[in-house]
């Protein structure tokens, strides 16, 4: 459909999109209500796999949220004008994705009605409690950051707001990775590498999501992204995806070096069934090698369609990676009696199988719906569309 025909129905198309996303969000809320009233017995989670599919969605969104703010940080902190034009949209996406991710996380609690308790009782030794504080602060800081960028009177402060947001989101992603890194009990976690790995994952996922949303907005408005900007972004995306691969290699190589981790690595890399498949095909092949190959291809690499495909594959690979990390890490039994074969009525020593159920999947989707709904309404109401020529000329004069 060409842009003139689309412009005629644009109003209705907006309502259709918002309606669809609202419906997805509502269905997610309904699924959460069903889970809360019947208890988690209606999910595939049990006493062995305690965090399931909703957590995979939630952690993806939270990690992507802090990563998508990277675009703004490259603009404000590192002073690249092209990225400065994109900073407000990046901030908005950060808030929207974090809101969606947190909604899923909070609704998956055993007692979501006790949210007030979670906000008023803090055990500061818990990295989870620190995360709650960091997430709340993130909303405030990014909101202020967006304000400094969009309000002409406040523009002078955007540098400071941007820097604070940058530091805050580094702390936030480090803390998110440390949720797992601080767990001494499980062989998949208890490693300091998880914190920086989550930071790099956030860079990769965040930029992929940003590229997709930005392209959608441009197509909706009949605008075309400057190929030079697209080239820059796709090279950056390839770099980030490669960096994630680097961290994955280091993580597994180190584990393989320890005799006590050998059986766990064998499980993930060789005979873990769905987890092995998701690791090699989902994370490595679809999520890393194919996108990098596409993005760095000399002829098709710079085309918009290629970049969009690569971004989508990176996102899918990200879900696979988190699924293997989160659920594979729980499926592998705890090593309570090292060197011994163990069995019990509580499934000690046995690989646990997890089959996600529909309510969990709908809840996760609902979170995505909420994030995209917030984005859709906000870009309709406020000026988030990156305008390169206008921004570049006028703002360059106003700032450094």
């Amino acid at each position, binding site marked *: 459909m060409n842009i003139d025909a689309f412009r005629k129905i644009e109003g209705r198309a907006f309502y259709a999109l918002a309606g669809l996303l609202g419906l997805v969000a509502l269905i997610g809320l309904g699924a959460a209500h069903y889970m809360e009233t019947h*208890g*988690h017995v209606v999910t595939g989670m049990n006493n062995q796999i*305690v965090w399931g599919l909703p957590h995979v969605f939630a952690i993806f969104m939270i990690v992507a949220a802090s990563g998508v703010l990277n675009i703004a940080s490259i603009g404000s902190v590192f002073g690249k004008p092209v990225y400065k034009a994109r900073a407000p949209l990046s901030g908005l996406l950060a808030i929207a994705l974090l809101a969606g991710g947190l909604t899923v996380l909070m609704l998956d609690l*055993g007692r979501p009605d006790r949210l007030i308790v979670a906000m008023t009782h803090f055990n500061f030794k818990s990295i989870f409690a620190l995360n709650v504080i960091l997430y709340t602060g993130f909303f405030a800081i990014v909101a202020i950051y967006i304000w400094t960028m969009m309000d002409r009177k406040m523009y002078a402060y955007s540098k400071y707001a941007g820097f604070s947001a940058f530091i805050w989101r580094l702390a936030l992603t480090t803390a998110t990775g440390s949720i797992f890194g601080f767990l*001494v009990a499980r062989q998949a976690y208890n490693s300091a590498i998880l914190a920086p790995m989550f930071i790099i994952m956030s860079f990769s996922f965040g930029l992929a999501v940003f590229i997709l949303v930005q392209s959608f907005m441009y197509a909706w408005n009949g605008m075309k992204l400057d190929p030079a900007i697209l080239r820059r972004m796709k090279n950056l995306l390839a770099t980030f995806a490669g960096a994630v691969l680097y961290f994955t290699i280091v993580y597994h190589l180190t584990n393989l070096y320890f005799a006590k981790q050998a059986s766990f690595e064998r499980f993930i890399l060789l005979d873990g069934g769905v987890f092995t498949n998701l690791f090699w095909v989902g994370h490595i092949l679809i999520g890393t090698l194919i996108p990098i190959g596409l993005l760095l291809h000399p002829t098709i690499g710079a085309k918009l369609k290629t970049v969009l495909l690569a971004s989508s594959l990176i996102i899918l690979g990200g879900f696979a990676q988190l699924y293997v990390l989160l659920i594979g890490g729980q499926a592998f039994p705890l090593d309570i009696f090292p060197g011994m074969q*163990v069995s019990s*009525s509580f499934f000690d020593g046995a690989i646990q199988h997890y089959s996600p159920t529909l309510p969990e999947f709908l809840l996760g989707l609902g979170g995505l719906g909420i994030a995209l709904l917030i984005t859709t309404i906000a870009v309709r109401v406020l000026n988030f569309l990156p305008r390169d020529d206008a921004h570049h000329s006028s703002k360059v004069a106003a700032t450094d």
Partner: protein
Amino acid sequence: MSHNVDKTNDDKPSDGSRRQFIGYGAAMAGLAIAPGVTLFDLAHGRAPEEAASNKVRWGMLIDTGKCASGCNDCVSACGKENGFSGSRETDSQWIRKVEIKDLRNGQSHSLPMMCQHCEHPPCVDVCPTGASFKRADGIVLVDRHICIGCRYCMMACPYKARSFVHEELHDQNPDVPRGKGCVESCTLCVHRVDKGGQPACAEACSEAGHNAILFGDLNDQNSEISKRVTKLATTQVRADLGLNVGIRYQGI
């Protein structure tokens, strides 16, 4: 408890002393019939208004040599006391029998595994609201008034001691409140211990004559458990984690 609806309150004094005599007699008879009674460390019941103190550290010593492979007495007793049963993947199991086998030489053991009541519990460190806590006398508990059911403690426990309540519960034991959406684990039968009793598992094991589980105060040098732990070589499961647990094992 004196506030119970007690229809016998208006007894004549002579009835009181007769009942006392029957009481003493029954206690003596009970002593004679139950041989394992000496395994119960006389933990003089704490007065109700007295708080738990860190002068006491409750612990258990489990002799795996006396633990038979097919026996589930401790598990049944725990379920009966605390009001749960079943072994579906979503059912709570506060204590379970674990069969371990050394693949190199075929040596096998059976032992009960429950919350180890660590001195440095990882579950307490990670709980965002502070619902998972360690009482002064060493018992690790979940304050279900503020537990939000995030299950992070279940991820953190190296012994897989914690269970999550996946469905609505009815007819709970009034001494053991437990409900949907909260995490729970072995309480060392704190409702019994506070009144001078011992955990249901230890009691069941001794009453059945196996005497594999000994409960007592690790800080009291005169207690049976302290004497044994000083005299014999006992181990903590996953001692390498440095958690200094209160449950010690003998024979593994």
